[in-house]
């Protein structure tokens, strides 16, 4: 298949082509991975050594340094996934749908980790691994939305149709994200309210810094691993294109 170079005035649009984005993703990936590794080492040092013991929860509170970042990522990734899926539906661009597919498994894993670390935090502080509380339940719904997106996509053979069907599901599911975020305000829940909001924080400074460092560490990790996955997806879907075959060492 002959490939012609798209003539565009705005250079950024060239990266909408999987062929162009593939090497860019490969170049960016190690940098984000390095950010993830370095910041997680520093963040865990701050969180486990520097941050003082919590007055009410003792050492159990230290779960916050992984619980809050994974919970934030679970929501951020969902919004990003829905955004790419929406762009895929509107512009019919292949790369957008590939990005949505690349984000889903990482988002599901972050949701799982938020629930897992939440259970391990709930047991010593509330006396229960799980309660059917608004915050916990809406986060569980988020996990089901990710799983639904992935299974729906996998169940349709025609990949373009799968993109559209799963993309629609992703867009509808986005209403759940504000529900998770505001659940602690809208309902009486066992889950504590936000310690950090756009208005300010109720946390001690070393704890806050450790949590923010861990958040950036998870951002770095997630971006790196999503770029890694989108490269595999690009090769998988473009396997019949000449450039992809050259990339895979098949003439």
């Amino acid at each position, binding site marked *: 298949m002959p490939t012609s170079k798209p003539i565009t005035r705005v250079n950024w649009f060239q990266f909408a082509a999987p062929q162009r984005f593939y090497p860019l993703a490969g170049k960016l990936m190690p940098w984000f991975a390095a950010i993830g590794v370095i910041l997680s080492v520093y963040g865990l040092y701050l969180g486990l050594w520097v941050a003082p013991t919590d007055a009410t929860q003792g050492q159990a509170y230290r779960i916050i340094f992984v619980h809050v970042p994974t919970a934030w990522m679970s929501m951020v990734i969902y919004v990003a996934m829905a955004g790419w899926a929406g762009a895929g539906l509107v512009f019919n661009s292949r790369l957008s749908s590939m990005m949505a597919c690349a984000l889903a498994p990482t988002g599901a894993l972050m949701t799982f980790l938020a629930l897992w670390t939440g259970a391990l935090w709930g047991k010593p502080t509330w006396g229960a691994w799980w309660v059917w509380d608004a915050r916990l339940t809406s986060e569980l719904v988020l996990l089901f939305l990710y799983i639904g997106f992935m299974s729906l996509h996998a169940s349709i053979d025609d990949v373009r149709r799968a993109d559209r069907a799963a993309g629609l599901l992703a867009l509808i599911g986005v209403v759940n994200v504000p529900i998770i975020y505001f659940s602690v305000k809208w309902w009486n829940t066992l889950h504590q309210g936000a310690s950090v909001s756009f208005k300010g924080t109720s946390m001690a400074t070393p704890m806050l810094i450790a949590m923010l460092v861990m958040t950036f560490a998870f951002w770095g990790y997630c971006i790196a691993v999503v770029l890694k996955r989108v490269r595999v997806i690009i*090769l998988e879907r473009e*396997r019949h294109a000449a450039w992809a075959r050259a990339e895979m060492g098949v003439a």
Partner: protein
Amino acid sequence: MWNNVGDFLAMGGYGLYVWGSIGACLLVCMVEPISLNLKRRALLAEVREQGTPDTGQSQS
């Protein structure tokens, strides 16, 4: 805060919960990229294996 390694691991009696949380995160963050490496390798092997008859161009 921590007088010795045992103290640090015990986390004031919450060791199982704190390390269970951090350990799960570290495990996921190692398994996910490794599984992607394996997936990529499997894809390359599959394409190389069926690649040539697929396009009908056997000679390089």
